């Protein structure tokens, strides 16, 4: 453990805690049957999709270490998150 502890004192570990909490939140939201109308489902589903894209951005920046990569590589990744999130949400909401 004495070897592991300093290695875990890192931004990636904080990102990881956030990722776990966000997963549990989405799981809870996505399985909550207390919602009545379709509009509620659409709103909650949109939030869940947004959270998923925030999560993959964190995986890219802190696990793949793109935060410390040259700007073009980071921009391609940030662009991917933004464009795919917009396309997924747009297609979902258009239904």
């Amino acid at each position, binding site marked *: 453990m004495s070897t592991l502890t300093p290695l875990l004192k890192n931004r*990636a570990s904080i990102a990881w805690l956030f990722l776990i909490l966000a*997963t549990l939140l989405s799981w809870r939201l996505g399985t909550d049957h207390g919602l009545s109308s379709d509009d509620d489902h659409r709103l909650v589903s949109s939030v*869940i999709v947004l959270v*998923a894209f925030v999560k993959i951005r964190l995986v890219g920046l802190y696990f*793949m270490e793109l935060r410390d*990569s*040259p700007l073009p590589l980071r921009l391609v990744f940030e662009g991917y998150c933004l464009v795919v999130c917009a396309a997924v949400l747009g*297609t*979902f909401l258009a239904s």
Partner: protein
Amino acid sequence: MSTITRAADEKVGRPKTEQHVPGEVGTWVFIFGDMTIFAILFVTYLYYRADDPKLFDASQKHLDQTYGAVNTLLLLLSSLLVATAVRAVRARKVQIVPWLIAGAFSCGLAFSGLKIAEWHEKVSHGLKPATNDFYMYYFVLTGLHWFHLIIGLFVLSFLFYLARKPEMSKRQFGFFEGGACFWHMVDLLWIVLFPLLYLVK
């Protein structure tokens, strides 16, 4: 002489502001190519869902979200272990690296086991790719992701082999970083697939 110590020295010694491409540029062409194919599949799935949202939502009710959520947690844990392994190589704490990679590999194996159990459960209840469009997408998307996970397990095996070497060359460390990023991509794709298939309605 290019040894792990030197590779590590260069990494550890680099100023905080210095930028660095993890792995090799070729790795990123491959990773973004794969991510783009999946992005197209995400949108295609939602596009066809729009044709018959009631059928998709009714079919989704037969999925067990627990499988999807536990698998997400397993991949997140494996990603943390792999990211920590990369930092451990840099910090020259090499003795812990094989353990971290073996831990990540076990998480991946558990994911695969749960996925196969879930498929088996569905098929034994008569829910097959031919059942309807939802199940066709469910099996294609989870199957394609599983295929990537299996490739990822082979990649992790090679990282384990590298981690057990007393010395890692700079080129080998580049492969180590690139392999780690491939594993993170397997995690990243599942982070989107899980809500799309299991939660969104």
